[in-house]
């Protein structure tokens, strides 16, 4: 039953998502969903390295960038009539670019995992950005490279000029990629990659070379990163060397971690949350990056298995605790969360207002009240709430029942 229901639900969701433009979904929703689809593909490809194979990369955006620039030139080539390729198949070109680059750089970087691999990936990322800046004729320098995706050569007859049309193309490719990567995790290679992640030495004594397993996984991750880059190029039609950079790599790392690296579909959850935060929170407050960072730290500290881990654990925890237990826990922890949360927001917003706003004397609106950053009152209230929250947290911790250890009885 479960085997049929889950794919069916996925197909229905995909159908609904594809139908959205016809239901008159606004431009904002479409742009958001397009960005989400790109991020989802990119984060999933990142987790082929990190969660599946145990390769912590600080330079995954290099392969995204390879796909971006290859696709930008490919689209221009199609438009000029040099390349006989329909626009729908451009992502294959991006994937090929990502694969080739990953195959070359992978040879030198996957010999060791852990810190060695992480440092090499960081070095390669810096090298790639510096290299791209050296060749403004290819990478366009600060201004970047741009193209026009209306090439009049497509399989479906769509012109892909409107965001709604490109959204459908991006979505289909993103879903294909995510499915392919989920499938990969169930193949012998995917299982062996998990084994290499847990214990490379043992794998070597089972007849497999950990190096090759890492290398193939690394190439696959690069391929899908290149494909994601292609989707990026198709959507935005412009990019400069900053897409290769450490900022982009850090962003995908954070998204993947937030979602949960131990789950195959964790990165999809992470991409969803990060994209929504990026678009919605940034419209609400200038300090959104600060909150984003706080969320990341909170997840690392309190839920190392990510948001997916929280989602997966919640039903079981609810069943174990029962309604009484849940009410009790809420009564204990909700005030803590509210006090710390609101106190932090008040202080952060006041700080940002004082240091960043046009005129600090101007009143600001916070939680539907107009306050002045010049008076002491809001500062004292914010600090008071934060301190009270922290004190309550400490008190709760002290009076908590010692956690049961789940070890084997002697």
């Amino acid at each position, binding site marked *: 039953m479960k085997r049929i229901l889950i794919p069916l639900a996925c197909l229905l969701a995909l159908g609904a998502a594809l139908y959205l433009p016809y239901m008159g979904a606004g431009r904002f929703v479409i742009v958001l969903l397009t960005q989400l689809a790109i991020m989802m593909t990119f984060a999933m490809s990142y987790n082929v390295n990190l969660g599946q194979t145990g390769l912590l990369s600080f330079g995954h955006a290099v392969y995204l960038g390879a796909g971006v620039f290859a696709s930008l030139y490919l689209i221009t080539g199609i438009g000029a009539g040099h390349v006989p390729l329909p626009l729908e198949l451009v992502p294959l070109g991006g994937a090929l670019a990502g694969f080739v680059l990953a195959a070359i750089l992978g040879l030198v970087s996957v010999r060791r995992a852990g810190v060695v691999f992480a440092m090499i990936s960081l070095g390669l990322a810096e090298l790639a950005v510096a290299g791209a800046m050296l060749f403004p004729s290819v990478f366009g320098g600060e201004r970047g490279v741009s193209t026009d995706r209306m090439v009049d050569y497509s399989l479906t007859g769509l012109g892909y000029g409107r965001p709604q049309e490109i959204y459908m193309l991006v979505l289909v490719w993103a879903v294909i990629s995510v499915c392919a990567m989920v*499938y*990969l995790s*169930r*193949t*012998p*290679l*995917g*299982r*062996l990659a*998990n*084994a290499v*992640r*847990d*214990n490379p*030495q*043992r*794998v*070597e*004594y*089972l*007849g*497999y*070379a950990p190096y*090759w*397993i890492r290398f*193939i996984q690394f190439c*696959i991750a690069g391929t899908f990163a290149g494909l994601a880059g292609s989707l990026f190029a198709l959507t935005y039609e412009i990019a400069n060397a900053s897409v290769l950079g450490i900022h982009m790599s850090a962003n995908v790392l954070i998204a993947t971690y937030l979602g949960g690296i*131990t789950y195959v579909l964790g990165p999809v959850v992470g991409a969803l949350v990060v994209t929504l935060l990026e678009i919605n929170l940034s419209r609400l407050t200038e300090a959104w990056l600060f909150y984003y960072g706080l969320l990341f730290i909170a997840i690392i500290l309190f839920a190392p298995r990510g948001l997916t881990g929280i989602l997966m654990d919640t039903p079981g925890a609810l069943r174990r605790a029962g309604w009484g237990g849940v009410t009790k826990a809420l009564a204990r922890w909700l005030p803590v969360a509210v006090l710390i949360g609101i106190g932090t927001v008040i202080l952060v917003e006041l700080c940002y207002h004082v240091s960043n706003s046009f005129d600090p004397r101007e009143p600001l609106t916070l939680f539907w009240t107009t306050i002045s950053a010049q008076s002491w009152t809001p500062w004292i209230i914010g600090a008071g709430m934060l301190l009270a929250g922290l004190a309550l947290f400490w008190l709760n911790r002290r009076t908590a029942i010692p956690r049961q250890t789940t070890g*084997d009885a002697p």
Partner: protein
Amino acid sequence: MSILSITGLHKNFGAAKIIQGIDLTIEQGEFHAIIGPNGAGKSTLFNLISGQFAPSAGEVTLQGRRISGLRPYQINRMGLSRSFQVSNIFAKMSVFENLRCALMWSSNVGYCFWRRASRSGDIDTRAHALMDEIGLSARGTDMAGNLSYAEQRALEVGMTIAGGAAVLLFDEPTAGMNHHEVETFAAFLRKIAQGRTVMMVEHDMNVVFSLADRISVLVYGQIIATGTPETIRANPAVREAYLGADA
């Protein structure tokens, strides 16, 4: 017929001569135990045979083919498999997945990424059979890291025998077990060893003398005696160098 033969094996780490000329042949189907005091070089000998280190001199041949100097995965493919003193399993994967990974190379699936693992030949059937053999059928879906110590040791042995290797090396299989567990585990090892060629390093003398067909005594990187349990027990040099210290 000898299946594994070691000739003139030496290993130096810098100035330290750990293995100083070992000659040893293991016969097809025998259970051969290596004993010796701490620091005699037993683990180093296993690491040399299995490919963890390359020998400084001498050679090891498996079924007539030279294996010394090859990588561990190459040696494993040629038919030699080993277990470890410290449980060396995939802690965050299920027991079933652990065994399946151990079966993959011998099932000819290679580095396949276009077919599901469960659809790759009879690999699932073999994994289930193996799970029965090592007595972990009830724990198939549990994470290997959550098993009890003795269960992890059994899984370790299961992964070692999975590929159907011609020669098995067991490195202190009962290390860290209590008395009761050792007894159960020795019976388990006896069952496993049937029809297989086994070389074992072991500290527990009861286990060694009850299981081994032949015993070699390693002292300061040299084998001072090889023979049946009775001859080893009676050998005065062995008594002096090793057993004597125990008594």
